[in-house]
């Protein structure tokens, strides 16, 4: 057996992480439930599904727009798109680099600017994912394939986001920006001072 001493591993699973994902998934489902309930009394041939979906996705887009923290934003729904930024912020915080004194105010501003641009890039990928999801749903409708479970819709949503996120990730713009995000954060630490 392995020596326990040589594997001082982290806890098996952060239960809070699991609950966070569950809440986010439930927020996604809650949105879809509203959508379905709105059209439940309409006969299928009376509904312009393309238009209905577009209107519904606009709500998602609004939630995305609110994800910067404006009042009224649904934080769980916003997490659907800002997960990467959240992971980044957790790691940045773990480095112990905090808002600096006046001497480093410019460095902090540069970091905040890079972070804002990073969020813009994530939002752009998310918008493209919604467009792609609309397209995929339309293709399925044309092929006569119905989606009849929340999980299936969620998985489709994940696929679409991975696709557009992956495209963004491979871009030169992302490579430059993610590097700058990291570099600007590091410059916020007073010179000559290393993390203990």
């Amino acid at each position: 057996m392995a020596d326990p001493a040589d594997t001082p591993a982290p806890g098996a699973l952060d239960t809070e992480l699991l609950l966070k994902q569950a809440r986010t998934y439930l927020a996604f489902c809650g949105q879809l439930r509203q959508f379905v309930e709105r059209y439940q009394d309409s006969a299928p041939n009376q509904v312009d599904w393309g238009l209905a979906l577009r209107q519904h996705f606009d709500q998602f887009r609004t939630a995305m727009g609110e994800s910067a923290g404006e009042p009224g934003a649904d934080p769980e729904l916003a997490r659907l798109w800002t997960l990467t930024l959240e992971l980044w912020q957790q790691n940045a915080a773990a480095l112990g680099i905090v808002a600096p004194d006046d001497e480093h105010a410019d460095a902090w501003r540069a970091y905040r600017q890079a972070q804002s641009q990073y969020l813009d890039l994530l939002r752009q990928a998310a918008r493209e994912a919604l467009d792609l999801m609309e397209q995929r749903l339309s293709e399925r409708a044309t092929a006569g394939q119905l989606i009849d479970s929340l999980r299936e819709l969620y998985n489709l949503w994940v696929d679409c986001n991975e696709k557009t996120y992956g495209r963004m990730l491979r871009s030169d713009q992302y490579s430059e920006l993610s590097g700058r995000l990291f570099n600007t954060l590091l410059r916020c630490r007073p010179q000559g001072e290393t993390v203990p």
Partner: protein
Amino acid sequence: MIGLTPERIVEELEAFNARLTRGIQTLSGVGEIEAGVSPREAVYREDKLILYRYRPRATEPHPVPLLIVYALVNRPYMMDLQEDRSMIRGLLDAGLDVYLIDWGYPDAGDRGLTLSDYIDRYITHCVDYLRDRHRQDSINLLGVCQGGALSLCFASLYPERIRNLVTMVTPVDFHTPDNLLTHLIRHVDVDLLVDTLGNLPGGLLNFAFLSLSPFRLAGQKYVDMMDILDDAEALKNFLRMEKWIFDSPDQAGEAFRQFAKDFFQQNKLVRGEVIIGDRRVDLHHVAMPVLNVYATQDHLVPPAASRALADCCGSQDYAELSFRGGHIGIYVSARAQREIPPAIADWLLGR
């Protein structure tokens, strides 16, 4: 288009909530998750390094020992994760005498460790220990991922001490167009990073890996996990993998500085320009038999990055083994257990 009804949605949400509630209880009672299952003993120690020998499963194991050099990133128990998912057990079953270097967890005191320390000192001392212990002029070396790159450097600098070299999912050309890790680190100011942070925190490496596929790795995976919360065994398997993923040692600062700049950013390994200590790593000196194992769906080390070895190593006995799977699946999938260890053992035993 969407065949959902409000009733169906309510039903699905209720089922999800019920599973979640039960699952939290299961999780709290699942106990300690252990990884690393094959019996082994520590035979050599130096600083934080421990060299393990796995208890042979053959009555008379092969006289030439096999030393596994794992990456500095993540922990080596991935090679011996659980009873039915153990690359090491497969190698033992095939009659090999298997040793593994555990690098331990670097701390602030290790910040100054260089790649020369890892290659000229640690690997050299382990290899020499095994040559002496087994009375062999040369031994077999198996390098995994980044450990494969370190093994190539070692084999280039000390070719007479290596009888056969196996590289597994090992990057050689870091500038193939599909190399996402290089893409991510290309604009990072590595000097600023190391000068500021000292060691590279393991958490940052985790972020880099998760950020390659965040919707799946940090979202969907946990939603899917709800499906196995009632199955204690499946849950333990999942948690074992989680433990490994997040068990990321910090990277010794100076070694990381050189690896990030020379290998990732400047692609010096494939060009023969890496300097270890005061010696140049020329892959043409890797003249011993080489088996290069790669995974066709590897998103971290693309096949082309590994297969570049064919054009730059000096071996006249170079072979490739292709595995249909990804960077993690090649260690832990059921098919990998059937395919990889026997193939490596066959190749080694034939030489």
